[in-house]
């Protein structure tokens, strides 16, 4: 019992143990409610909600009316859960640091490659996030909604996505890191 508690307090687990936990969550989603995990769809629901409030005419299109209707959907609640899950995980290892200034680019590896500029970190992260969400739209899901959820059902879509993701991830890392790859 004490060993288990000590393990929960560890900051980083074996990826195998954490992976087993995620696998069980994936099973539970199907078994309990016949649905799949996902994250990228939630941002589309919320984007539609904000868009329709701010500029109703522009957001009155097929996508926001029928494909991804806006609202606080179960996908959004799932992402809220992910948020609190990350918080809980950090709290158990004493690494929860709300809005602390040095968390902006706290990663030593980032600093080594890009320096300490917060603006640079935020700018690159913002562009990266736009690319991620747009790509998830085209692919039909992200790492959770397509790679994990589709992969566990053996959907070919998931493995095509994973192959593409690794190929371009490796090339991008090669370009960014250059001699330090």
């Amino acid at each position: 019992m004490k060993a288990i508690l000590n393990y929960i307090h560890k900051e980083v687990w074996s990826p195998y143990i954490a992976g087993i936990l995620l696998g069980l969550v994936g099973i539970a989603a199907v078994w309990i409610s016949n649905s799949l995990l996902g994250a990228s769809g939630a941002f589309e629901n919320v984007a539609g909600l904000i868009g329709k409030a701010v500029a109703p005419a522009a957001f009155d299109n097929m996508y926001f009316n029928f494909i991804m209707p806006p609202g606080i959907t179960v996908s959004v609640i799932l992402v809220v859960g992910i948020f609190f899950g990350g918080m809980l995980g950090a709290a158990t290892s004493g690494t929860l640091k709300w809005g602390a200034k040095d968390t902006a680019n706290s990663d030593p590896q980032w600093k080594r490659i890009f320096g300490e500029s917060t603006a640079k970190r935020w700018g690159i992260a913002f562009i990266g996030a736009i690319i991620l969400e747009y790509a998830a739209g085209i692919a039909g899901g992200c790492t959770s909604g397509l790679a994990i959820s589709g992969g566990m059902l053996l959907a070919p879509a998931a493995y095509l996505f994973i192959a593409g993701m690794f190929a371009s991830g490796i090339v991008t890392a090669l370009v960014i890191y250059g001699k330090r790859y």
Partner: protein
Amino acid sequence: MNYIVALILGVFFGFSLNKAGLTKYNKIVNVFRFTDMAVLQFMMTALVVSMSGLYALRGLGLVTFPSVPATYIVGNLVGGLIFGVGMALSGYCPGTCAAGAGEGKLDYIVPGLLGFLTGAVIYGLTYEVVFPGISAIANYGNVVLPDLWHLDPFLTVLTFALMSFLLFYLIDRAGWQRKEK
């Protein structure tokens, strides 16, 4: 899925992402540099566990599969290729960003979440130009691999599991991992 179930599953999901270390920039990027394979180990473990569980439960008649993510070869692949660029730039994906935001990291909360919303808006407004065309090419619908290629589902899962274990062996024992410079 109802709200309570979504929230609880989300918490476990986010918790597993935090404990796997995936809410850190370096964990995500280093899988593309082959210096830390935790992302791959975590994903493959989750896939083996959930795939075995779900195909076994379906074999026993205890679950039916929810709508399988659609396979449209070019779109899944191109989406994955764009996605990998965003991942290597930002060091997160939609799920891990939500969990990292819960840990209080400002570069996950502000540029991350805003970037996803921006990406969702751009996607939603260009959907009709992009998606119907790309998803019509080589579209196999909501199919799973055993049905598509007429394979025995249990042998397919077993093969996937054995390939994953071989990969884990190669990463952990045979040193298929580069040393950080």
